[in-house]
């Protein structure tokens, strides 16, 4: 569980890092990178986190 949460944190954190880098160097290209790379990474991190929680709940018989 902890490993999967950490993996989700790395992916989500990477997404925020991309957005932060784009915000620091704001151009039309970096805005697109932020929207096309940064935001999907954050969504992927959130999905990975939810999947980890769901699997853990299933293993424990909570769902």
């Amino acid at each position: 569980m902890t490993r999967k949460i950490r993996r989700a944190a790395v992916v989500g954190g990477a997404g925020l890092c991309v957005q932060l880098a784009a915000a620091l160097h704001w151009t039309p290209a970096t805005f697109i990178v932020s929207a096309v790379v940064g935001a999907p990474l954050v969504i992927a991190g959130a999905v990975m986190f939810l999947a980890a929680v769901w699997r853990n709940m299933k293993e424990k018989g909570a769902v």
Partner: protein
Amino acid sequence: MLPSSVIIALAAGVAIIALLFLGAGVLSGNTVGRVVLLVGLLALPLLLSVANFSYGVHESSRTHFCLSCHEMKDHGKSLFVDSKQALAAFHYQNRLVDRETVCYSCHKDYAMFGDVRAKLNGLRHVWAHYVAGIPKKIELYQPYRNSNCLHCHDDARSFVEGVAHKPVLAALTSGSMSCLACHRIAHDLAKVEAGDFWQAR
């Protein structure tokens, strides 16, 4: 660079995620910790991304954003030419449109999904800038629509009662006659080249 508030918020988000990464083992072992993980790894990054994206969309409507590509520099300079016939210069210098969003005010389609269409056109600009190559002559993708002018001028007294407008009012409203048929100069690039600027005096 985006405003410091956006940068601080994103940096704080990264720092919180880093802390949660380190403390994931301890936090996942108790109820409060699991709630902290849920907020920190799910709600916070998503909220920050939505806020950052919507702020970015808002910023992309601003004049300095449009003029940040070098091929638009002359069009930017054309806002300052000494000409009462040049539409862009006249509107900008007389504050008929918000100077912060002057490009967007006139080049955005005011119909339904006009904002979306304008942003998609923006993507085409970026594609041309980085991949397809910048055309020698910068032109609109489609003829300029009267509805963009009429969005502001439609019921303006100076427009409706204008001597030149009265006989062609119906044609202008229906779009069968372009506003640009008479107002021929949108961006006076010849005066830009000649260096004839209003603020230089």
